């Protein structure tokens, strides 16, 4: 199979895998990991499909987008981790309550 599509499919797989883990796991750290895996999946789709250039150098625009995306992801992860620690400090658990407060 064309590697572009192979990696794109892997990206789709990572995206859904991350989505599954995000929904199923309660621990916030796992949720944050899951988001990162999902992001990697999206980035993979974005870059893999950029190689469809008939052997020429791949399209650089998605590369730039992914670098932007990686920085955004690390920023979000840092914020999420700090927030997770706050949740732990306030509630004693690194999980969210099942029911929103009502």
């Amino acid at each position, binding site marked *: 199979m064309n590697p572009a599509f192979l990696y794109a499919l892997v990206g789709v797989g990572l995206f859904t895998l991350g989505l*599954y883990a995000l929904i*199923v796991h309660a*621990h916030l750290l*796992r949720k944050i990991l899951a988001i990162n895996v999902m992001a990697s999946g999206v980035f993979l789709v974005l870059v893999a*499909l950029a190689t469809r250039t008939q052997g020429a150098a791949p399209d650089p625009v998605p590369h730039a987008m992914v670098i932007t995306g990686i920085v955004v992801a690390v*920023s979000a992860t840092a914020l999420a981790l700090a927030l997770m*620690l706050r949740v732990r400090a306030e509630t004693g658990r690194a999980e969210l309550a099942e029911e929103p407060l009502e």
Partner: protein
Amino acid sequence: MTLLQSVFDALLGFALLWLAWQALASPDLFKGIVLFIAFGLLMALAWVRLDAPDIALAEAAIGAGLTGALLLAALARLDKSSWRGFGRTPVRPPEGNNRDVIHPSKRDTKSAHEKTRKPKPITENGKGQAAFCGLLVVSLSALAAGLGYAVLTLPSQAPGLSDSVAASLEASGVSNPVTAVLLNFRGYDTLLELGVLLLALFGVWSFGVVPERRESSPGPVLDRLSRLLIPWLILVAGYLLWVGAHAPGGAFQAGSVLAAAGVLWLLTGWRLDTRFSGWPLRIILVAGLGVFVVVAVVLILMGGRLLEYPPSFAAALILLIEAAATLSIGITLAALFLGSRPETGPQR
């Protein structure tokens, strides 16, 4: 060789999925994070396979390296000894199945494994949970199948914007097309993205000053290692910054290497003197964004459009922006690793 490459690609793809699954499903959080870092390294390999060395560098440094460090630091702070005392409200002790363990040895991992064999379900009822998970698996499989199908129907040849980039590369001031896109063609994205990074720091700092976990003394080995490595790291960062104009590299990669130096330094127990943790630190943190904005405004005042570099100055301006950005990115990421605002001097 194509067959070998295909086999390699398939193996790598499979390994990525497997590692991701293991990282997410691992009952031991520490193990999960380690697997995630490994996942990040394999991702870097995938980027290389996809002819994206710039991303490979960024992924290895930021995606796997710094994110991993952030995750491990957070996990360490989640450990029981650290959260006691910095919560305001009296807290329930965590329940058995979320006592998260940091145990490198197999024996301990095993015991932890038993404790958290099942990740905490989101519905209490066992049967309902099974049904829910089943439904979820089915619908997500359908989603994956649909997305996969959609991807496969895309034309197998599509140049995207590579031709336009190539056509305008001359005028961009740099010869590395990715840097050209990042800092020139789509420089506005990068401007906003520096904002995102800074904003994350604002956010983390706004959560208040977390009393620091007293690390055990770093010991002579780490101390010596860091003394040896940090100058190298700074040098490498400078090199990456410089080389980014025409080869893989650039501000983000350089910044994250710089951040690695900072993280290493922080790990040895070094802290910024309170004299510098106020204004001087803030200035460095905003330098990247600030220089970017100033350049933008000056260009507009000179009659251009936003971020419209005169071709003759483009190279110099991009380098200027990148230099400031590298510094800010490095210090910001290191500050994010620290996890809260450093204590400032007596003016508070």
